[in-house]
C-alpha cells in the first residue's frame, strides 16, 4: 500500500467528557441513583470498540423513515405539523459516516408516546407510531419525514416539562462510537427550563443540539424542514514514516 496510513488505523479519539452531560445531577432526579460513583476506567480503544455491526439497506422497509405514514403502512397520515428532519452524520475527522444506521423515536403532536409505560392523558394518534430508521448515504446524509412532537409534563420537580424533542440513536462504524442524543427545535422556550438539557453544563454544547428551521428544504404547501447534523467519535491518525520514492 502506498500513501499515508488511513485515519482508520488508530484508536478512537478519547471522549471529551466536557462536551457531554454530567452523570450525576440532582436536578434530574433519576440520575441520582443511576450514576456510577467510581471514575470510568480510561484506556485506548481495542478491536472490540473499533468494530461494530453493519446493517444493509435490505433490512429496512421503504416507509421506515416516514413517521407520518409508517404506522398505518401508508393508509392514513399522522396528525400534526408536517416536518422534514435532515442532516449529516460526520466523525471528528470531519469525514462523512457512510451507510450507518440512524434510529429516531418521539412523542406524537400532543406530547404522548405510544409506549406501555406512558400514562399522560394526551390522546394517542391512531395514525402515529413514533419510530423511524434509515441508513446514511455516501455523503453521510439522512432524512426523516415526521410531525413535530408536542411538549409534555414529566414527574421530576414540581412542574417540569420536556421541550419538543426527537431522540436519535447513532451507530457509526465501531461499537465505541455508539451515541444516543436528542434534537431540540429552534426557538422553543422550554429548552432553557429543562433539567435533562441542563445535565450538559456547557451552554455552547446545548446549542449544538438545537436544530434550526431550514427553509431551503421546506416544501411549499407541504412541510417545513429542520437541519440536525451529528458528529460521532473519530479515529486518531497514526504517525506514518516517509516512504522512499517509487514505492
Amino acid at each position, binding site marked *: 500500500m502506498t500513501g499515508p496510513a488511513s485515519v482508520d488505523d488508530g484508536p*478512537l479519539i478519547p471522549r*471529551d467528557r466536557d*462536551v*457531554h*452531560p*454530567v452523570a450525576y*445531577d440532582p436536578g*434530574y432526579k*433519576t*440520575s*441520582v*441513583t*443511576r*450514576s*456510577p*460513583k*467510581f471514575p*470510568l*476506567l*480510561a*484506556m485506548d480503544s*481495542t*478491536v*472490540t*470498540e473499533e*468494530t*461494530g*455491526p453493519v446493517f444493509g439497506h435490505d433490512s429496512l422497509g421503504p416507509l421506515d423513515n416516514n413517521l407520518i405514514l*409508517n*404506522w398505518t403502512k401508508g393508509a392514513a397520515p399522522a396528525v400534526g405539523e408536517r416536518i422534514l428532519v435532515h442532516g449529516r452524520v460526520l*466523525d*471528528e475527522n470531519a469525514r462523512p459516516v457512510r451507510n450507518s*444506521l440512524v*434510529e*429516531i*423515536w418521539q412523542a406524537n403532536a400532543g406530547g404522548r*408516546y*405510544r*409506549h*406501555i*409505560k406512558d400514562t399522560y392523558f394526551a390522546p394517542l394518534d391512531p395514525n402515529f*407510531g*413514533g*419510530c*423511524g*430508521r434509515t441508513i446514511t448515504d455516501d455523503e453521510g446524509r439522512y432524512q426523516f419525514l415526521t410531525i413535530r412532537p408536542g411538549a409534555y409534563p414529566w414527574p421530576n420537580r414540581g412542574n417540569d416539562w420536556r421541550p419538543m424533542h426527537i*431522540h436519535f*440513536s447513532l451507530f457509526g462504524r465501531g*461499537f465505541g462510537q*455508539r*451515541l*444516543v442524543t436528542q434534537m431540540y427545535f429552534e426557538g422553543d422556550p422550554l429548552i432553557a427550563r429543562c433539567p*435533562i438539557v441542563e*445535565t*450538559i453544563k456547557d451552554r455552547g454544547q*446545548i446549542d449544538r443540539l438545537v436544530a434550526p428551521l431550514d427553509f431551503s428544504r421546506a416544501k411549499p404547501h407541504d412541510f417545513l424542514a429542520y437541519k440536525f447534523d451529528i*458528529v*460521532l*467519535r*473519530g479515529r486518531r491518525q497514526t504517525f506514518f514514516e516517509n516512504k522512499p520514492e517509487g514505492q
Partner: protein
Amino acid sequence: MVQPLEALQETPSQTAGPFVHIGTVPTYAGLGGVYETELGRATFLDGARGEIVEISGRVLDGAGGLVRDALFEVWQADADGRYPGQDGADPKVFGWARVCADPESGEWRLRTVKPGRTRRRDGLEQAPHIAVWLIARGVNVGLQTRIYFADEDNGGDPLLARIDPKSRVDTLIAEKTGEGAYRFDIVLQGEGETVFFDM
C-alpha cells in the same frame, strides 16, 4: 489568533429516556409490526460455530433497586475470536444484539456464542469477552462495560490488569452457574459497582 482546527467535536449525549424501546425494540414497547424486521433480536443464527451459552442477570441502581427499563446492546467476536466483517469470520455470527430487562421481574437473558480470544493492535491477547453498552432513563451518557467468563483464563487480559482495586475485577466476570450457564449482574452505583470504561 491561531489557525482554526479542522477537527470537529462529538455531539453531546442525552439520556435515552424511559421510552427508548419505541425506537430500538418497538415490539417491547407495544409497537410490534411497525417494522418488517426488528434489529438486534439475536447475535447468531443456527449453525454458528462454537459453544452456545446463556447469560442472565439483573441491572441494579445505587439503592439496590431493579432497573426494569434498562436496555443494553452487546457486541462480540465469533468462537474463533473474529469480529463480523473480519476475514474468515463466521457468517452465522452477527455479533450484535439488544437485551431488555423483563418489565416485571427485571431479569434479562442473553443466549449467544461464547466468543474466542482477540488480539489488540499492540499484540496483547484479550480474554474472551462481550462488550456491553447500556442506556436507560437517568443514564446521561451510555455506559460501556464488558462481560468476561469465570471459566476462562482471564489472567493475561490487559484491560482486567488495569483495574484498581483488584477486588473490582470480579464485577466484570460472569459466574458459572451450570453447563453453559452464567450469571452477571450490572450494578450502576454503590456496593459492588460494575467497572465502566471510557475507551
